[in-house]
């Protein structure tokens, strides 16, 4: 029955090996998608190339469907998985700030590491920047600690809990939303490509 408990069955060393392998697959996929290139990532926000949206939501969709299918078939227990607790306002404000940093710096932590791996100097610098930003956070967090710890602290809340529906309904809604977004993304790309006429502005 999944999820497995590798450190118990295989020992610490082999569990770490699996972590490395998983990371390799992760990094490989990101680089394949072109995410080691800040320009490709940023293109999302200028409506030229919506691949960030496509990759992210396809990944979420795939994993989500596999997780819930496994749970429905009794192979896995969804509630045993780590579900990120919801700290609503720190999450939203942090997300806005992070989004700004993303489009200014051109990366997110994972993709910056991939850029580093392919000798992207901007990727290396971005990671250094990350460290600085995190350090600053550590230095200043005491001033807004209460906000960070308690604001919107609903604990573990899933979409289906929030909507008061069954998990399978939330899954269905997410699938519909994602498919609509994909369709929208294709249309947006086509529109801007036609406008550009193929030349750089």
């Amino acid at each position, binding site marked *: 029955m999944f999820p497995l408990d590798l450190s118990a069955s295989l020992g610490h060393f082999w569990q770490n090996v699996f972590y490395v392998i998983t990371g390799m697959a992760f990094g490989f996929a990101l680089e394949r998608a072109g995410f080691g290139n800040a320009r490709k990532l940023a293109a999302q926000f200028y409506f030229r190339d919506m691949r960030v949206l496509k990759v992210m939501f396809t990944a979420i969709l795939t994993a989500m469907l596999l997780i*819930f*299918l496994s749970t*429905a078939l009794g192979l896995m227990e969804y509630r045993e998985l*780590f*579900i990120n607790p919801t700290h609503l306002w720190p999450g939203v404000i942090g997300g806005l700030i992070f989004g700004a940093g993303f489009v200014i710096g051109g990366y997110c932590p994972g993709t910056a590491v991939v850029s580093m791996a392919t000798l992207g100097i901007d990727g290396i610098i971005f990671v250094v920047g990350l460290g600085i930003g995190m350090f600053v956070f550590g230095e200043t967090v005491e001033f807004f600690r209460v906000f960070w710890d308690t604001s919107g602290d609903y604990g*573990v809340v899933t979409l289906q*809990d929030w909507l008061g529906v069954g998990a*399978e309904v939330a899954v269905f809604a997410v699938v519909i939303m994602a*498919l609509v977004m994909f369709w929208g993304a294709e249309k947006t790309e086509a529109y801007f490509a036609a406008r550009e006429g193929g030349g750089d502005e």
Partner: protein
Amino acid sequence: MKLKLAGSALALATAVALLLMGMPTVDARIEENRPAVEKVLTSRSVHIDPAELVDLINNANFGLRIFDLRDESEFNLFHIRDAKRIVNGMLRDPVWINKLPSRTVFVLVSNGEKRAEQAFAILSAWKVPNVYILAGGVNQWVRLYGDPQKLVVSPATDCAKAECRQYVFDAALGDRHPASDPDPEENIGRDYERKVKPLGRTVRKAGGCG
């Protein structure tokens, strides 16, 4: 283009299939778990001696939650200090379950053991770790730490399971009875088997970047 259509169709089909199949419910899981839970309960490996609970209350360096399954009137009459009364609705609410703190030992308390054992079965189905039951329930607790004159012997023979209240108090003092927070010294000389194990790793490990 064909790939996208195929992918979308597949995703949609899976989602619809999930809608039709539905997720396994708590009750289904409780049924599934029943044999394992029966085994654990019969071996009494999770029934802890009142003295051990007193020790936990006074000495634990991890979180401790005492959940009281009794009726409100009984709870108001007497309860262990810091015990919280919970009801079935909470046990079946995934939101409540997910809010349970990690690195915490939970001790279930009822008059005897029956309601505590039922709650134990539900919490096991949710895979909540570190759950124990107060052996003998409040009846036994009052027998040990309460005023002997306050005890009414119930005519039922096996009252531990039947959940009848074997104690009576003059006033509903809630947790302000001396017995709500017994002095650990009262336990000197009482031998008991320690059953609370070092905290099991919460199944939901701390993943993510938090």
